[in-house]
């Protein structure tokens, strides 16, 4: 198991990168009224066939050649379902894939959200040729990180130069703290 929701997101988002996505949208929406924590990962990658889609939540399915087990998606699904939540995955070849996991926010078995700053910072700075849209919401208050916006401002200055990388990290930290308002999830 991956012990934090943020690690599951990092893992599942790698599938979007492998699928050749130009834009991957990641949203985390925490709502204490409905008592849910909802994660969506949507990409415009190559998508999956119906057959692949049926197989992807099966731990004994993987596209890689090195071994016959693929645990990323099954881990994420089980983690959500164990908290009274739900898991959906939809995909279309040539269009992209949508993953949605709903966790019971106050459920005793819900793993901590963990370090989302690291997850997003890693995805953005190590894959600087593709775009990410991240939205983090707590009880209706939210912030957005859009690499397309960054790219427009930066021009040919890449995301992985230290000054920019540091800016992206503190952008994530400061804005998350503001949205969290002293709470942690």
């Amino acid at each position: 198991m991956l012990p934090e929701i943020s690690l599951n997101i990092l893992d599942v988002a790698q599938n979007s990168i492998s699928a050749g996505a130009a834009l991957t949208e990641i949203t985390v929406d925490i709502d204490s009224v409905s008592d849910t924590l909802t994660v969506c990962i949507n990409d415009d990658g190559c998508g999956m066939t119906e057959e692949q889609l049926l197989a992807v939540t099966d731990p004994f399915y993987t596209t890689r050649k090195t071994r016959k087990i693929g645990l990323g998606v099954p881990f994420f699904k089980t983690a959500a379902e164990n908290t009274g939540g739900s898991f959906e995955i939809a995909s279309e070849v040539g269009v992209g894939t949508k993953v949605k996991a709903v966790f019971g926010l106050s459920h005793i078995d819900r793993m901590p959200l963990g370090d989302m700053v690291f997850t997003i910072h890693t995805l953005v700075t190590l894959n600087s040729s593709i775009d990410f849209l991240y939205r983090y919401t707590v009880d209706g208050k939210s912030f957005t990180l859009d690499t397309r916006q960054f790219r427009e401002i930066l021009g040919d200055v890449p995301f992985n130069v230290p000054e920019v990388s540091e800016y992206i990290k503190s952008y994530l930290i400061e804005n998350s703290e503001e949205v969290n308002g002293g709470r942690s999830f």
Partner: protein
Amino acid sequence: MKTLEELMAIRNKMQGQVNLRAEDGSAVRVVVGMATCGIAAGARPVLNAFAEGVQEKGLKDVMVTQTGCIGLCQYEPIVEVIEPGKEKVTYIKMTAEKVAEVIEQHLIGGDVVKKYTISTELK
């Protein structure tokens, strides 16, 4: 809240003086396995330690990057150091502490930290 104006300021400062990293294959590549197996075994702090260490030491010609599963899950976290014109070095069962040694001795000093390489650990 952090604003985009700050990013604008960084860009204005950097533009022109950014020595865009050599993409001509002369850079040293540090590749961290970040598939499910790697992440579960603790690749996150390892990747973080490399990214921060390389930045801290100002190693401009070192590129830290990630890859998927290479099929040796039992040895994760795995890190490959690829220097142009040299044989690839594979470090296994890495931790943030070991990363500090690899940065100091291998990336800066040029000596492979043999005790953490796959060929040593498997003997």
